[in-house]
């Protein structure tokens, strides 16, 4: 029984790992990309993505609080910490750098 439960835990871990690999390889992106083709794409701006993501966990940090180089480091940190998609992190960084 103990071994079965332990194996179940390892199975869950392997499943999560597989999801990560699939996402990394981009095969899942093909499915999503096909779904996106069916409707017009509205591109969110860096300011909108900043409003969507950053205030989820902390109060607003103004672009003028940091230099462009510092924002680059901060966004790299937040991309990892908050699991932000790369494209969204880049747009938010551009917005912060252009307004600091």
């Amino acid at each position, binding site marked *: 029984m103990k071994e079965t439960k332990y194996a179940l835990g390892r199975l869950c*871990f392997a499943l999560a790992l597989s999801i990560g690999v699939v996402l990394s390889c981009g095969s899942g992106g093909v499915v*999503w990309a096909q779904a996106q083709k069916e409707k017009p794409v509205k591109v*969110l701006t860096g300011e909108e993505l900043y409003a969507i993501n950053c205030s989820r966990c902390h109060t607003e940090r103004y672009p003028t609080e940091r230099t462009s180089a510092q924002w680059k480091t901060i966004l790299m940190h937040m991309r990892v910490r908050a699991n*932000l*998609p790369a494209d969204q992190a880049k747009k938010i960084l551009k917005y912060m750098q252009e307004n600091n």
Partner: protein
Amino acid sequence: MKKVIKAIVCATVTLSFVGLCSVPSSWAVTDQEFQALQKQVQQQNQLLQQLLKQNQQDQYEIQRLKQQQGQTDQKAEQAAQTAQAAQAEASSKVQPVAAALNAPMENHNFMLAGDAEVQYTDQGGGSKARGSYGLADFAPIFLYRANDKVLFEAGFDTTLSNSSFDTSNDTNPGAVVSTSGGNQGYSTTFNLSFAQIDYLFNDYATFVAGDMLLPLGTYSERGAGWLNKLADDPLARSLLPGSGVGVQVRGSKAIGDNGSMLTYAVYTVNGGHAIDNTSFATIKDSSGNIVQNFDPTGNVNNLNRQPSEGGRIGWFYPWKPHYDVEVGLSGQTGEWNTAGNVWQAGVIDAAIHLSPYFETKGEYIYTRQQTIDLGTISPKGWWVQSGFKMSYFDWDVPFIPNTELVFRYDTVDNAIGNLTNTAKVERRFEPGLVYYITNTLWLKGSYEKTFNSDGVPSDNEWLLELSYGF
């Protein structure tokens, strides 16, 4: 050169002709004058012959130089072809390696972030410490961006705490008491909260290694410290490790065009372990008190047989800025002692924002632990916290617009409380508020009322904290 010579010849001939024509007006030429003139013409002819000869030599020299240049060009071309062939041959023999991660020095960056807190507590009832400055905390985060793909980050937590103040619910793991106040009733701790290397492998995956904050729920990564709108941690977070030493792969994929995303993280770390390396649920400490034998902070070291594994998968969906929902499922499993007994944890987390003014978030935490004396025990708990910003009303009165009302309910069932002469179940109500002096300087205040099971008296406490994020 030819033009010069032609000019000289023409000039000479012209001069000669003019000379011949330059007869005296009398049209009388003596023999002596004729001979002189003849001699002069002869000299000029000789000069002309010398110039023509020199011209031929120059032409020959030019031809020779052109031929030499052609030979040199041919040799250079042959050398280039030889070098190219050698390079191709060398490339075919050498194993391909990733490009060196170099970047201009001006792109490197080192910076400091983090937070600092000062806390005042006033405990009611029969508490040993009624009112005191219970905690002073400085928690810097060092960030070093080596290049566009590599980031080093380390968080430290230096805390001066009043020992009389109950810190049993502090989920900051791995704290080591470096100095002690002895009978002064305080202690100073220096805690490495996390120290990790992040490598951005591609847009969808980041490798993380080191002492990492763990994605068991979202509280450790995104809710603790300065980000917490209340001054203390939820009770049930004491069931989980906050960090662990190991490796992790994490990332996300945007879904659709509204900013929603699917996130994931998988990791392996040194698991929690038994304090005394046995499989008993409880042990006696040096003072003879019965305490829990499982150390969740043992993700740092490894006293069990092998590392543990865990991960989280989450879904975030915003329908417009400041309106979103996020749900996540996470867990960790692994042995906690040398007998092969297993400790497992599962966490469901959720958060919702309805406008810039209102948010609710919470976690449900369930753990299972195999023991030889109590069988399988299941410590568990949950918490939910809401916040409402008074700026919603747009009242033109002092202080109120900068205030946020906060409320949290949390509970924990440690499964062995009745054995350790403490409450098995605790339920806590905590209303509070945050006053935003600036966007990074907060004044937090709350009142806690804790109800305990097993006949343990209820607690109540006032908390006041000045918190600064930088």
